[in-house]
């Protein structure tokens, strides 16, 4: 059950469907050999096909097809063994052909489903309507000259997958969770880098509202939203806008809108009357795409372990909480890292180290896991030193800090800095005895029943041993000696 919004008169439900455009990591563009990297000099990655020079013809990039099929399989969808590329006709300067090659009636991937994880710990299944391949357009730059527009065709023809959900989401939280899950899946299988900032993932958000239980209301489509935060804000604004209109007794016009993050509002882009007639028809330059079932089967067998399955495994095999498991599987690298450290170690302890120290350091230094100076192997060795009582947990944090800065092994640091914990009970006892003798007043307090005061003694012993005494041993000794 989604959230209920209260208007001034009524209660409302929001219905959300998403069209996510994901740029496919395919080496080259969908129908040309030009590369598709982000951030190159304008118009430096443009083939004759991308510029729609006369007589040029599209040739399908096989890697794009492979990635689309893998993505379809990863969202548990039907793979259509026959799909057809169609032309979507409209005029715009950054669309050189005057049409976008897309898929219309027969997309490469049909219905599927994605499980999302909600902030309250719950989950929900979001249906996938279809996934199709299409060309991206170029980029128009209107702010470089007072009267002219500039066109950059680097992006023209780049492979996009459009992943269309069913209108199964009923809150901004769900929409954000859905995109996050899709992004996670895409990154797991390497079909898209999921970088929303660079535009390699963006969403068209369809929003409508209705009284609970009513049939679907008229929807508005918010185009090209490029961050999770903006998706959330756009939905919330748009739902409120529609509720206000309906509560005033007016009706919603089906229209295309734009989200303006500076003003936190959606604005009319074009109304239904101005909607293009795209005149879709099968592209006569391309044959229907026919796939063999065996090809699909091979790709399926070759998929990596996906986040949902991995999460279940982490809960079942490692005994992690669902929350910890979700956090650890969100990125494939993190899951791999955890798997490698947790082997033959205490999984809970490993999870805490990863989500605590490791994530903290990554965030502070704005690094990715791949760039982290502390590898899985090194973190494992550090945890081993705690487990075999060579160092205390507190010392381990200092050692981790030094490992991060210097890249050295835990063992090296512990050796060279003499951080080995004192586990010899005799050695600790001498120190304990000395401190008790020097502080009879405090000792009496503990003996008198103030058990909290024992903490002061622990602190003194740790200080005297520069933190190297085993805290457990110190506690035990103190309790024995200060018994009344």
């Amino acid at each position: 059950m989604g959230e209920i919004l209260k208007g001034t008169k009524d209660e409302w439900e929001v219905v959300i469907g998403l069209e996510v455009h994901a740029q496919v990591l395919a080496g080259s563009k969908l129908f040309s050999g030009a590369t598709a990297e982000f951030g190159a000099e304008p118009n430096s990655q443009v083939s004759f096909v991308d510029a729609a020079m006369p007589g040029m013809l599209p040739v399908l990039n096989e890697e794009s097809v492979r990635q689309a099929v893998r993505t379809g399989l990863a969202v548990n969808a039907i793979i259509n063994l026959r799909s057809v590329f169609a032309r979507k006709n409209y005029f715009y300067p950054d669309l050189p052909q005057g049409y976008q090659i897309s898929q219309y009636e027969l997309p490469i991937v049909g219905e599927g489903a994605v499980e999302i994880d909600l902030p309250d710990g719950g989950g929900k299944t979001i249906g996938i309507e279809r996934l199709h391949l299409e060309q991206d357009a170029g980029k128009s730059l209107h702010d470089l000259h007072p009267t002219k527009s500039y066109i950059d065709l680097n992006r023209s023809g780049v492979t996009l997958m459009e992943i269309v959900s069913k209108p199964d989401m009923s809150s901004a939280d769900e929409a954000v969770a859905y995109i996050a899950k899709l992004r996670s899946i895409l990154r797991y299988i390497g079909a898209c880098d999921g970088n929303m900032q660079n535009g390699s993932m963006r969403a068209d958000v369809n929003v409508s509202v209705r009284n609970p239980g009513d049939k679907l209301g008229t929807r508005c489509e918010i185009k090209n939203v490029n961050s999770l935060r903006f998706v959330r804000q756009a939905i919330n604004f748009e739902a409120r806008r529609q509720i206000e209109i309906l509560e005033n007794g007016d009706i919603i016009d089906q229209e295309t809108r734009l989200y303006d993050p500076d003003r936190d509002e959606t604005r009319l882009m074009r109304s239904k009357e101005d909607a293009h007639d795209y005149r879709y028809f099968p592209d006569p330059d391309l044959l229907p795409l026919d796939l063999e079932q065996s090809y699909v089967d091979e790709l399926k067998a070759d998929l990596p372990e996906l986040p949902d399955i991995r999460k279940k495994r982490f809960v079942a095999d490692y005994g992690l909480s669902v929350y910890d498991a979700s956090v650890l599987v969100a990125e494939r690298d993190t899951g791999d890292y955890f798997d490698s450290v947790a082997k033959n170690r205490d999984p809970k302890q490993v999870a805490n180290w990863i989500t605590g120290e490791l994530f903290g350091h990554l965030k502070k230094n704005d690094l990715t896991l791949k760039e982290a100076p502390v590898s899985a192997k090194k973190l494992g060795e550090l945890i081993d030193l705690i487990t075999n009582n060579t160092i205390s947990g507190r010392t381990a944090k200092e050692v981790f800090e030094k490992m991060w800065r210097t890249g050295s092994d835990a063992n090296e640091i512990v050796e060279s800095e003499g951080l080995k914990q004192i586990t010899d009970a005799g050695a600790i006892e001498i120190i304990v005895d000395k401190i008790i003798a020097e502080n009879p007043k405090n000792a009496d307090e503990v003996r008198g029943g103030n058990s909290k005061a024992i903490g002061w003694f622990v602190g003194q012993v740790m200080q005297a041993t520069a933190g190297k005494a085993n805290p457990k041993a110190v506690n035990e000794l103190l309790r024995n000696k200060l018994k009344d």
Partner: protein
Amino acid sequence: MILTDLTIAEARNMLNAGDISSVELTEAHIRAMEATSSLNLFITETCEKALSKAKESDTQRLSGNQGKLEGIPIGVKDLFCTHGVMASAASKILTGFTPCYESTVTKNLWDAGAVMLGKTNMDEFAMGSSNETSYYGPVTNPWQRANEPKVKLVPGGSSGGSAAAVAARTVMGALGTDTGGSIRQPASFCGVVGMKPTYGRCSRWGMIAFASSLDQAGPLTRTVRDSAIMLEEMAGYDAKDSTCVDIGVPEYEASLEKDVKGVRVGVPKEYFLEGMPEEIRSIWDQGITWFKEAGAEVVDVSLPHTKYALPTYYIVAPAEASSNLARYDGVRYGIRIEGKDLQEMYENTRAEGFGREVRRRIMIGTYVLSAGYYDAYYLKAQKVRTKIAADFRNSWKTVDLLLTPTAPSAAFVQGEKMNDPIAMYLNDIFTVPASMAGLPAISVPAGLSSDGLPLGLQLIAKPFDEELLFRGAGILELAANFKEKPTLAA
């Protein structure tokens, strides 16, 4: 000996024997181009390039590494992109467009040693059956009516410049393109051999698109043998065209040595039209007799959906064209006519850049693809198209070739049909069905009309059976013994 009267095969043999040089041959054709300049055969002449290529060819020949068309001067329809030479598609909108790439088919010809004399005139974007829609003006047919020699006749279209140039002896052969009859109909009007290969036999890469599912390059020549020689060099698989078929190219010229004894030639009854000129009927009958005399078995067949081919074609081809021509928007190449905003720039550029016939077809095509009309027009046309193809497939159970007239009339007078698009479209009535089915077809000059104009007969073959097509065409050519020369030839 008149060098411009030589066929490609004859010239090749003389070049190989050292009797003539490519430079001599090329110079003779350049003089012929000058002598026939009033026919407006070329949009761009490349005489200097031709001479330097001819010199190279002569040197190449000395090394013994000559190509199969080494030193043979030809014309290229201005629909092909040619590196460093303007490609206009006979449209104002592509004024000044000089490609920096070479179409696959022309590259194949240059690799075989051919010499380009120039880019031939054509109907704008290959839309037309009379070569009168060209922005560069109409082409005049070198043939004249015996009784009205002053009347200027059309060469047919859209490859009108190519067909007329071959007939006028200004080129030894020419490259054309055929979408619904654009090689075969002008070949019939100009008394030359015009051949459309199976769809997918030649690469479309670098050929300016009209209707992608129909466009196919083909040769225009004076003999069937020359046609076979040219196609052999043009054809072949090209990974840059997804609709090009990966199938070996046979030695077409060698296939001419075989006869047609026992070959079954079908005569489709639906091609007998009410009100068809008597001389078209009689030349067709003549063709039937020739095949019988050559030992072929003539069979009556029925292709029941034939009458739907033309209306279907005039839905499918404009639909594809309306989309293919969207790229001519004034943004990247060709002309741009500024306007107060983007929309007006588009409107000004396309209104000024495209001629009437092109605009008409863009509007038809846009209409038939529009929401609410798509099912009734485009989708239905596609369904009919599959039925037309099925008719042909059925006929191949009983016949190996089909024999029909190429066009419903001889060449007509310039201006006669320009204000009657339907009358103009009817020119393609016999050629369009094979186009819709993607089949190879050839037009061979078979005789003269009562007023002294050439008439062609069309043969249609199974997909990729160009060998048998050439063999059948060879029989027609031999029997017709067509030796007449147009009055305005060089």
